[in-house]
């Protein structure tokens, strides 16, 4: 499969301040915030969490990796202004989130920026879950 990517990857491994460890903590590491920019390759508008996937290019090496981004449930996203069509395959987005503890290319999305607009992602980190 051929992908066109024009992306950047910036992984920030700075220690976060005392953000709460909600029960998302067994899956995600609050000490590993991440910002990812890439093209959407797939959207799963489903429960218990909506997921979308982006292709991210490391500008230093040219390597492209596919990341999975977990958000809240569709109902929670709707309350933050989303619809099932907000993200489309091919959209260029920037994601602010938290990396998974299992070491895979998985992150919990906190905010999604598209076309200059920032949308909250109903993250379990901010939902007290």
């Amino acid at each position, binding site marked *: 499969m051929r992908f066109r990517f024009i992306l950047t990857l910036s992984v920030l491994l700075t220690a976060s301040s*005392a*953000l*709460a*460890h*909600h*029960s998302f*903590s*067994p*899956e*995600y*590491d609050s000490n590993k915030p991440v910002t990812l920019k890439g093209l959407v390759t797939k959207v*799963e508008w*489903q*429960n*218990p*969490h909506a*997921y979308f996937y982006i292709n991210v290019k490391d500008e230093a090496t040219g390597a492209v990796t596919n990341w999975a981004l*977990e958000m*809240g*449930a*569709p*109902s*929670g996203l709707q*309350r933050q202004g989303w619809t099932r069509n907000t993200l489309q395959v091919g959209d260029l987005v920037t994601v602010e989130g938290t990396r*998974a*503890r*299992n070491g895979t290319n*998985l992150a919990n999305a906190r905010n999604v920026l598209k076309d200059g607009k920032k949308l909250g992602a*109903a993250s379990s980190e*901010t*939902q*007290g*879950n």
Partner: protein
Amino acid sequence: MRTRIVFGVAAVVAVVVAGISAPVPAAAQRAAKAPSAPTPHWPDGRVNFGPLPGGKGHWNTGVGNLSETPIKMNGAFLVDPKDIDKVAPFQPWAKALVQYRLDTAGRDDPHPRCIPPAGPRQFNTPYGLEIVDQPEVKRVLVLSGGGSRSWRVIYMDGRPHPTGDDVNPTYYGHSVGHWEKDTLVVDTTGFNERFWMTRRPTGMVHTDMLHLIEHISRPDFDTLHYEVTIDDPGAYTRPWTASWNVPWTTDEVEEYFCQDNNKDTGQLVGGDTP
């Protein structure tokens, strides 16, 4: 059959936890919120725990903690680890197991594996619940909006709990109920041990000796008050009680199935707790 909706709880509520929320003066909170309408009742005098006829809404996610004494919480975890002794009168083995579950960030919680939110957990699980009163058949159904979207039956016809070999331990157990004025009192036995009975704190234990007594009331239109007494001589040294309020929301319950696209099982690896 005419079905009467009596309660509802569901949806997502942003939980403002101690230690991370910006303080809001109490006076400002009072000023921001309009006074609630009074408790609604059906024509026969029975309290209505649901929307008004033709209206909409349900009970949102309860944000209370299953704790005998109010303690400072950080989401599902204790801010001060020493507060575990304030949560409940644990037997030593039960305290050790809860401590282990807290220390491993709740990674083994059955709930993200779509096990039903049984016991008190039904009243503080995201996406809430509805309770459907069927006075014609003397049953009340408590429908979970979240988790595995499961339900429990409360028999209101005066039947006893099963005994002996007739006991078949289940997630929701065997519930019988009655009204004490405007309060629904529910007595439940027959639980299995394959679920964690609360969301906050994570990892609260029970045995198949668990006996719950729940008092559910609606002190005003916007508030559901949930009180539960845990009587489990297998895990605790004496019966103990916790309570919290569940807020009303004007949204309808949306469809939610944990089983739909659940990826959590392989991703729950544990982590640091506060």
